[in-house]
């Protein structure tokens, strides 16, 4: 009960902030919530199952381009375009899971990275369709969802909160379910799980598709809420980001991805206001955090304060 109170409490706080935050932070927080949804999907695979992917940008971009190309070239409205983005993410993650899960460890990382790079280069290669590096803008008229204009700040924030809340509660329910327990057991000792009668491949496949679909949902939402679809979101940088956010916030914790994303976002935002060498400041802060909170911020909370927090 306390666990649900904590997570619902965070959602209530985010809703309350909608009414009080100044415009700048209001926009930032909407962005953070969408990116945190992406990180939560990543955390299911990495934090809970122990599968370190370096190719999640492929899923994020699959969602974003599935939605964006649907709007741009098929003339879809926002709702079917979003669904197209989700389906694209699910299909791409399913295909990649079927191939990459035949490998493990470093090989898995390399295979996922290579596929993501192939996806990124495909976006550039098919520039006539995707407008390559330049990307394209989703016009305001196409950002109307059931009569709600998602280009307006307030609507955008609430839509981001809806996505974030859905992903958060889904993750919370999932990791406390029998399926989630098996995922943690796979992370701990894969062979032992097999020896207890579980189909490890099927579990890994399911979690990879779920993780990829969540990343695609975040990608599609990002494109729709912020009105831009670009190749940079398919680059390797966007595969590394969720790993960093999850590590900072606490791998294998439900709230960790949000805290990590928020922390990293504002760390870069604030340090760039102080110096042009802001990445140096950010780097030092990250090193300090890694030294004193090696399990991430929420991981430390779990270790020192509240052992039962999922």
């Amino acid at each position: 009960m306390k666990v649900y109170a904590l997570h619902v409490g965070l959602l209530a706080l985010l809703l309350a902030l909608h009414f009080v935050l100044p415009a700048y932070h209001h926009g930032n927080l909407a962005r953070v919530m969408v990116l945190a949804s992406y990180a939560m999907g990543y955390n299911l695979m990495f934090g809970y199952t122990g599968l370190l992917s370096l190719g999640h940008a492929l899923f994020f971009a699959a969602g974003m381009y599935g939605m964006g190309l649907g709007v741009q070239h098929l003339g879809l409205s926002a709702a079917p375009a979003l669904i197209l983005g989700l389906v694209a993410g699910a299909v791409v993650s399913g295909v990649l899971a079927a191939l990459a899960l035949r490998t493990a460890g470093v090989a898995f990382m390399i295979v996922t990275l290579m596929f993501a790079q192939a996806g990124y280069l495909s976006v550039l290669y098919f520039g006539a369709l995707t407008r390559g590096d330049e990307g394209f803008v989703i016009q305001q008229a196409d950002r109307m969802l059931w009569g709600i204009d998602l280009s307006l700040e307030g609507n955008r924030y609430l839509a981001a909160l809806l996505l974030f809340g859905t992903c958060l509660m889904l993750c919370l329910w999932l990791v406390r379910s029998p399926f989630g327990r098996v995922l943690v057991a796979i992370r701990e000792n894969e062979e032992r799980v097999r020896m207890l009668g579980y189909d490890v491949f099927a579990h890994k496949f399911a979690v990879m598709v779920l993780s990829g679909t969540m990343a695609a949902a975040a990608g599609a939402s990002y494109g729709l809420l912020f009105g831009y679809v670009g190749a940079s979101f398919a680059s390797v940088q966007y595969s590394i980001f969720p790993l960093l956010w999850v590590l900072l916030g606490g791998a294998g914790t439900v709230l960790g991805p949000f805290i990590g994303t928020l922390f990293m976002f504002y760390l870069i935002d604030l340090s760039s206001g102080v110096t042009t060498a802001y990445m140096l400041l950010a780097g030092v802060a990250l090193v300090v955090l890694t030294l004193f909170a090696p399990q991430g911020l929420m991981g430390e909370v779990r270790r020192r304060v509240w052992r039962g927090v999922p």
Partner: protein
Amino acid sequence: MLRLDRISAGYGRAQVLRDLSLEVKPGEILCLLGRNGAGKSTTMRAIMGLVPLVSGTIWLGDERLSDLPAHEVPRAGVGYVPQGRRLFADLTVAQNLEIGLMARQSGPEVRAEVLTRFPRLRERLGQKAQTLSGGEQQMLAMARALCLRPQVLLLDEPTEGLQPSMIAAIRDVIVGLREAGVAVLLVEQRVDAVLDLADRVAFLENGSGGAVMTADDLRANRSLVDRYVGV
């Protein structure tokens, strides 16, 4: 119950088991004895489907175990406690048991029965597995395997590195399982423990089956121990 019919198996080109045949009956403890590298642990891993068979068949009753993928072998009724226990170190005792219970949708009555065999674990339910003593970890590994309600239990050196009181406790559990009709295939290095527990003893030599005899016959013919196990 569990029957190995002329199995050969190994790792890549290295063939470890050659034409090995064995049978464990319900309510029987069969102990595998042999030198290091003789193939005792590989035999267990082959039964569990973790080492591919080159030839031969493994039967559990009328079911061909060797046709099943590895994850279906435990569901068919074979429990395995490997050497080194291999617990989910970061999970609690209760969560470790839960994973075992969920595998066959076993209910609370199975959990209660298992905890009756290991009362010490009942006091440790909320504790992480990595914080247990060696003996308690072994108990948890066995308890988790029993959550699958196995007809056959494979135990790979269950008393290795344990203090005498823990060895006695684990011995009692194994005897209790025999009385409950579970077939136990046991790998054990300590000959005294073998003579104390086993109904029959099967020797392994270079991956092939050697003599099979009752524990009483072995007691009367200790020179065989030196032949198969001595260095």
